């Protein structure tokens, strides 16, 4: 049997939606028994949400004051201690997961397998390399613990309606005090979060300027209730801030709908969007690689098509 421990990301009493996707990934492992661990000062609310995910058998709460903020150096030794009871430890491929999971792997003396996109067996997985140009099947040593991050864009969220038991654990682990949480800074946008938005409107270098980028895309994004994204080229050209970057070098997303405007589609961008349910591309170059992943393509002048399109859906 494979006993899988998922590191439960949560903030302000809310379980991160990435966790339900990690559960789906874990549930593809034959003979799985899935646990979710939550570390925090008071994880009662997040624990109830984790217990409600279908497929989760146990929820493990590790509540102590030192766990109030998600500091990797504090969380990792506790997760490494818990790992003794499990065959696999999975974290989400979010910033949190990228912070904590490799440290757990390091403490356990194993290499992390990053960005699992498919499960072939308990020890065989697929992951993308070369910016998504190639996919590897890799096999982990069955004699050792598997520590991995799950590429959340590759998996649907597991359904609600689970009935896991919730248990509290006390761990006698000495915690470091070398990292201190100072605060949280939030962006000043009213738009949906790029990472979790159901719809995303994204612009590329063809927009030509920061002014055009905002003029052409903001209204459309607002009408569609969409998050706003940008290609690497648009960010590098200064049309949009780095936080808006979509792709392997930015956010890897899987919205219901992705509308790529003036984006030719460098491979690293395509890697970041290919799991979107429906991809619409508007580009003047019919040979642009974006049309290889798009479901619907419009070859033409974005400055004519987009304003007209915005007017029509606003009507």
């Amino acid at each position, binding site marked *: 049997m494979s006993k899988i421990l998922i590191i439960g990301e949560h903030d302000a009493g809310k379980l991160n939606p990435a966790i339900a996707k990690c559960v789906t990934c874990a549930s593809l492992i034959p003979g799985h028994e899935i646990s979710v661990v939550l570390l925090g000062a008071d994880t009662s609310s997040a624990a109830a949400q984790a217990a409600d995910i279908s497929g989760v058998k146990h929820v493990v709460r590790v509540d102590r004051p030192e766990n109030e903020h998600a500091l990797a150096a504090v969380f990792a030794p506790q997760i490494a201690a818990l790992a003794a009871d499990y065959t696999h430890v999975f974290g989400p491929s979010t910033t949190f997961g*990228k912070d904590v999971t490799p440290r757990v792997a390091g403490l356990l003396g194993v290499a992390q397998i990053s960005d699992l996109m498919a499960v072939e067996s308990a020890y065989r997985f697929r992951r993308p390399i*070369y910016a998504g140009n190639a*996919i590897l099947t890799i096999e982990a040593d069955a004699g050792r613990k598997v520590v991995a991050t799950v590429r959340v864009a590759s998996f649907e969220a597991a359904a609600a309606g689970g009935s896991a038991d919730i248990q509290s654990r006390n761990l006698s682990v000495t915690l470091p005090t070398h990292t201190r949480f100072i605060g949280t800074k*939030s962006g*000043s946008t009213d738009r949906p979060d790029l990472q979790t938005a159901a719809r995303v409107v994204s612009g590329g270098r063809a927009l030509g300027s920061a002014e055009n980028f905002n003029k052409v895309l903001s209204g459309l994004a607002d009408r569609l209730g969409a998050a706003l994204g940008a290609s690497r080229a648009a960010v590098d050209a200064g049309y949009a801030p780095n936080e808006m*970057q979509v792709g392997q070098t930015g956010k890897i997303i899987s919205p219901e709908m992705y509308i790529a405007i003036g984006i030719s589609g460098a491979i690293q961008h395509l890697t970041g969007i290919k799991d979107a349910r429906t991809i619409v591309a508007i580009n003047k170059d019919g040979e642009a690689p974006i049309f290889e992943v798009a479901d619907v393509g419009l070859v033409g002048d974005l400055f004519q098509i987009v304003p007209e399109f915005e007017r029509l*859906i606003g009507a």
Partner: protein
Amino acid sequence: MKILVAVKQVAALDEDFTIRADGRDINPDFLIRDLNEWDDFSLEEAVKIKESAAAPVEVIAVTVGTDAADEALRKCLAKGADRAIRVWDDAVEGSDPIAIARILAAVARKEQPDLLFAGVQSSDQSFAATGIATAALLDWPHAAVVNQLTYTPGAKTALLRRELEAGVAHVVQIQVPAVLTIQLGINTPRYASLRSIKQAAAKPVELLTLDALGLSAADVGEAGSLSRVRRMYMPTKGRAQLIEGSSSEQAQRLAAIIREFKGEAA
């Protein structure tokens, strides 16, 4: 004060490429090699600290690789690194991130830097794990995905900002020595001048063996790795259904598709 910057000579695919005979990687003739783009930013961050400091700061670039990786190190020297170290031994071939981390941790123990920078990830293998695993092995604090850093050389702590999702960032104070993985966009990497490129070509690259680091062949390479590549394959490509017509016809069709998608009557 010392900053160690771990860098990697990464590989990108040429336009046309073939898979190696063993089916586990790309034929090396079709790989284009360059300094990992994240490392450009972490090196710049180190050089910025050096340039703004009152006391001397030494920036050391370190890589694990064959002599082909000297090119990446020379790029670092040309952009302001003071020294360059390359670790290699034939036994290192096939190392996974934990094996590379063992090597980097050994270099850090030898050099005793105040800060160790690594890129958030490499653009080819994309593990995003090596830097942080190094911190775990050293028992140093770390912070991943740093997009803003304030550090005065000699200070006991650094203040930094980490980029999370949803436009949220965490601000964290961390004791040094520490490992930071640096995100794209934290600064604007400089271009090396022709003169500095010429000067860098004449600078030595220090070569370290496993022996010199107190490591053995069993710690690294395939012997020290826990996973192996079975097979490589290429993702399939599709083709979009194209909407033809004038701009206004295209916009109308698209609007109809979106309405349908949103569950409204077309």
